[in-house]
C-alpha cells in the first residue's frame, strides 16, 4: 500500500475534524473493504481516520419499537445480540452469515452501509425494514439513502453513528452467495413491519432495490405462492462470469419465495 497518515481519534468530533478539509482523507470503520483496496494500491488516501477508538459508536439498544445499532458495531455482535435475535431474528441471521468469522469480528454495520457495496448484505435489511440512518449531521430514511453503485446520501465528512431498525412482525433474508467470493450474488430481504411489506434485493443490481410488485402481492397475501409468477426484468441487472442478468433475475424470484417461506415458518 501507499503511505498515508494514520489517525485514531477518541471522539466523533475529533474524527470529523480530522476528515475536514482533507480531500484525500478516508474514514475507516472495520476496514474490510478499505484495507484490501489499499493493499492492492487501488486507493491512495492522504489520511486514514480509524473510527475504532470511538467507544460510544458501538453497541445495541432497544428504544421503544426499534432496535438501535451503533455504527461501529461488529457483525459478530449483531449476530449474537439477544436483543436483535428477539426483535428481528432475520437481522441477526443476516449478520451471522456475512463473510467469515474474521470478517464478522472486524467488519461493522456502519462501514458496510456507508460503503454500499452492491453485493453487501446489510443494505437489503436496511431498505426492507425501512430503517433510519443517523449520522453526525442528521438522519436519513433508508429509501433516500442508497443512491447507486457505492453511492449513498452521505456527504463528505458525514459519519454513520447508528441505524435504527423497526421491529418486524415477519422477516427473513435469503442469500444466494457468489460461489467464489461468497458475497451475495442475489440476496432478498422480505419484511413485514408496522409500515407494511417490503422486499429488498441486494447483489443483483448496481445498488439495493425494492420490488414493488412483490410487495403489493405480499401485502394482500403473505405467501410464496403470491409472488411465484412475478418476474423481475433482467435489464440493468449485473452480469459477470458467475451469473448472467437473466439468471440473477430468476434467482430474485427464487430467493424471495424462500425468504417468504422462511418468514412464515
Amino acid at each position, binding site marked *: 500500500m501507499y503511505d498515508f497518515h494514520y489517525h485514531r481519534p477518541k471522539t466523533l468530533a475529533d474524527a470529523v475534524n480530522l476528515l475536514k478539509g482533507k480531500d484525500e482523507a478516508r474514514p475507516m470503520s472495520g476496514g474490510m473493504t478499505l484495507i484490501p483496496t489499499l493493499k492492492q494500491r487501488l486507493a491512495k488516501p492522504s489520511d486514514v481516520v480509524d473510527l475504532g477508538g470511538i467507544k460510544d459508536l458501538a453497541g445495541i439498544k432497544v428504544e421503544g419499537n426499534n432496535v438501535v445499532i451503533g455504527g461501529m458495531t461488529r457483525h459478530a455482535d449483531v449476530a449474537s445480540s439477544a436483543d436483535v435475535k428477539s426483535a428481528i431474528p432475520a437481522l441477526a441471521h443476516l449478520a451471522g452469515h456475512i463473510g467469515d468469522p474474521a470478517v464478522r469480528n472486524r467488519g461493522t454495520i456502519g462501514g458496510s452501509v456507508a460503503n454500499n457495496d452492491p453485493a453487501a448484505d446489510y443494505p437489503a435489511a436496511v431498505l426492507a425494514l425501512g430503517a433510519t440512518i443517523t449520522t453526525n449531521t442528521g438522519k436519513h430514511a433508508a429509501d433516500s439513502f442508497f443512491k447507486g453503485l457505492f453511492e449513498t446520501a452521505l456527504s463528505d465528512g458525514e459519519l454513520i453513528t447508528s441505524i435504527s431498525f423497526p421491529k418486524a412482525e415477519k422477516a427473513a433474508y435469503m442469500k444466494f452467495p457468489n*460461489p467464489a*467470493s461468497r458475497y451475495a450474488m442475489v440476496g432478498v430481504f422480505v419484511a413485514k413491519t408496522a409500515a407494511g411489506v417490503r422486499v429488498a434485493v441486494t447483489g443483483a443490481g448496481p445498488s439495493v432495490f425494492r420490488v414493488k410488485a412483490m410487495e403489493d402481492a405480499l401485502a394482500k397475501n403473505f405467501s410464496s405462492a403470491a409472488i411465484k409468477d412475478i418476474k423481475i426484468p433482467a435489464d440493468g441487472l449485473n452480469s459477470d*462470469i*458467475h451469473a448472467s442478468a437473466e*439468471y440473477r433475475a430468476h434467482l430474485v424470484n427464487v430467493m424471495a419465495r424462500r425468504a417468504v417461506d422462511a418468514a412464515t415458518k
Partner: protein
Amino acid sequence: MTAQTGIGARVKRKEDQRFLTGTGRYVDDLPLARATYAHFLRSPHAHAKIKSIDTSAAAKMPGVVAIFTGKDTADAKVGGLICGWVVKDKHGQPHKAPPHPVMALDTVRYVGDTVAMVVANSHDEAKDAAEAIKVDYEMLPANVDLATALDKGAPQIHAEAPGNLIYDWELGVKADVDAAFAKAAHVTKLDLVNNRLIPNAMEPRAAAAEYDKGTGNYTLWSTSQNPHVLRLILSAFVLGIPEHKLRVIAPDVGGGFGSKIFCYNEETMVTWAASRVGRPIKWTAERSESFQTDAHGRDHVTHAELALDKDGKFLGLKVETIANMGAYLSTFSTAVPTYLYATLLAGQYTTPVIYANVKAALTNTAPVDAYRGAGRPEATFVIESIVSKAAKELKMDPAELRRKNFIPANAFPYQTPVALQYDSGNYPPIIDEAIKIADYKGFEARRAEAKSRGKLRGIGFSSYIEACGLGPSRVIGQLGGGVGQWESAELRFNPTGNVQILTGAHSHGQSHETTFAQVVSDKLGVPIENIEVVHGDTATTPFGMGSYGSRSLAVGGSAIVKAADKIIAKGKKIAAHLMEASVADVVFEGGTFKVAGTDKAVPLGQAVFAAYVPHNYPLEELEPGMDENAFYDPSNFVYPAGTQICEVEVDPDTGEVEIVNFTAVDDFGNIVNPMIVEGQVHGGIVQGVGQALLENAVYDKETGQLVSGSYMDYTMPRADDVPSFKLGNKVTPCPHNPLGVKGCGEAGAIAAPAAVMNAVHDALAPVGVSHVPMPATPLNVWQAIHGARPAAE
C-alpha cells in the same frame, strides 16, 4: 519395536509439529543480511510491441538499487527458459520451439509477462519505482481463446510457430480405428472442454538468491519441487553458472501440485541479478501474481468417438484434442497432452484400437503445464465421460458396461494399443467394492426420495487408470524427455546409531519425513524418532529428480530400500566379525544381526558404532563408516487404478449441485501409511471436485485480461463443498518395485471430474439435459436446464 512405526502403520506426521505450530521455514522466512527486494513490472496487455522502456525516473526513486530489462539480460547473454521435452510431430519433426526470454525483449505475449525487474531496499520502494517506469506499448491483436487459436487469421503469437501450431501429433493407426468404426453397431460421440485451472498452492512462489564474491558461489532458495533439476536447467541452459558453483535449496514448500516443477523467470532473474547487485535479493509472489504467472493446468478442447458392438464391447476410440500451451512453452508443457494423456486413453478397458490426434496451440495466456495428474485427468475425463454417455445411449447400466470391457485380471501384464504396458491390476473387485460402499442398489430409492423434495438426484462412475511413478529413464528418453527419471537415496548413520535419510525427492506436502522414515524403521528396525529425512538442498542431498507424477515412494522409496539393503549387507559383515561367525550364517531380524541357532546377537546400533570406532573391525576387508547410497531406475511406470462413485443432488430452481455421497476405492499396491494415503485421496478428490463444480480460469476474449484473477472470482473448493468421503482399497502389489507400491498423489484429482460430471448428467437426464459444460456451476446448470426446457414452460 517397529510394528507401530513400520510399513502399514498409521504414524502421525512427523512434520506436522512444526507446520501446525507455525515453525516451518519457508523461502520468505529467510533472514538474509543486507537483503534487497525484487518486484517485477508485468505486462498489462495480452499482446503488444514494446516500443520503448524508460527507467530513468524510476532509477532515481528512493531505495532503488537496480533496474533490469530484457535488454540487460540480452546484453549479458542470459539464455532463454527451456522446454525440456521434445515431442516429434506426426511427420517426425520436433515441435516448434519459440524463444522464451527471461524478460520480454520487444514483445509481451500475455497479461503478466515480465517487462522489468526493480531491486530496492524494500518491497514497497521496488513497487513504487516500478510504477514510475514508462513503457510505450503498441497494441497487437490478441487471442486468448483456444478453440479459435489455430484458425486461419488468428493473431500470430510467435513467428517461429506459424499458425500458432506447436505440433500436430498422433498416436495409433487411424486406418485401423476407421476399420473398427466401420463395423460398429453403435458410435457414441462427445464434445467437451476440459476447463483451465490455476494451481493456487497455499504458499506462493518465492525465490531468494545470494552471491558470495569470495568464492564465486551462488545460492538460490526457491519454492521448487525439484531443486537439482532446477539447478541443472539454470546451469546448463539459462545462466551458465557451473553446477558446482550454484546451490539450490528448496526448504519447506507449501504445496506445488506441479506448478513448482518448472523453471520460472523470477528465480532465474533473482539469481542472475544477485551477483550484479552484490547483495542478496528476495522475491515472493503476491497472490495476484500467482494467478497471472504460475503455470496453469488442463485447458483442452476435445472431440471423441467410441465404437461399440451390439453387446457393448468397445471396438475402437478416436480422440481429437487441441491443447493450450499458453504464450510460451513451459518446462514440460509439450509432454502433458501427449505422452501423459494419449497413452492413457485405454483406461481400464480392452479397447483394441485407439487413435489420438493432439494439436498444441499458442494463445495469449499464461503458460500451461503439468498440474496434479497432468494429462491423466484429461484422459480420464474423456474416457469416463464417453463410456457413461454410451451407457445412457444404449440404456445399459454404467457399471455393467464398464465391467464388460475391463481388462481381465489374468491378462496382466497387459499391452495397451497406446504404448503402455500395464504391470498389474484387478479391476472388477474394485468396482464391486465401490458399489457396495456407495449402496448403488439403493440409489433409485434415494432418487425417488429426492424427487419428493424437488431435487434431481444423480449418480456417476469414474473408473480410472493412471501411469505414474515417473519413470523408466530409457522409455522417457525414447519419448523425447530430456532427463533421467531415477531417484537417489543415501542412508547416513551417525556413530550413536541414529540415521539420516538423504533423498533426491522433495516433500511439499507429501509427508516424506514420515513415510520414508517408516520404510527405514521397518527395514532396519530403527525407532522412527531416530530417523531424520533430509531433502531439498543440492549441497547436502545426492542428485535427485524431485517430486511430481506420484513418484516419490515408488521410485524414491525404492532407492531407500536399496540403500537399506546395502546397510544390512555391510552390517552383516561387521556383525559376523564381532560374533566370530561366518557372514553366510548371519541373519538380520528386527534390527539385530544373529547367528541362526545360537544366542549370538549384535544389534544394528552396535555394528554401526563398531564401523565408526573400528578398534575391533575387519579393516583389511571392509571400509569403516556406515553410509550407503543407491540410485533406482524403475523398469516400468506404476499403474494405480480405482473407481469413484459420486452422488449429487441438483436444485432445479437455482442450478446448485450438492455432492451428497462420494465413494473412492483405489488400488495403490502396498500402503506404507494408510492415514497419509487417505489424506492424499481426500485432497485429490477435492481438487477434482473443484475442477468439476467450481474452478475456472477465465480470460476476457476482448481485452485478454484474466477475469478470474483473485479469490473474488476464482472459486476454490472449501470444506463445505464436499461431503465426508467413503474410501476403500484393494491391493495388487506392484510387481517390479521392492515395496510393491503404486503412487497415490494424483488419483483423486484424476478420477473425480468425470465421476462428478457423470452424476450431474445422470441427475439432469430426466429434464432433458444432455450436456453441462465443466465446471457445473449454478449458472451453467441453470442455463442447461433453462435451454432444455420447452419454450412454453
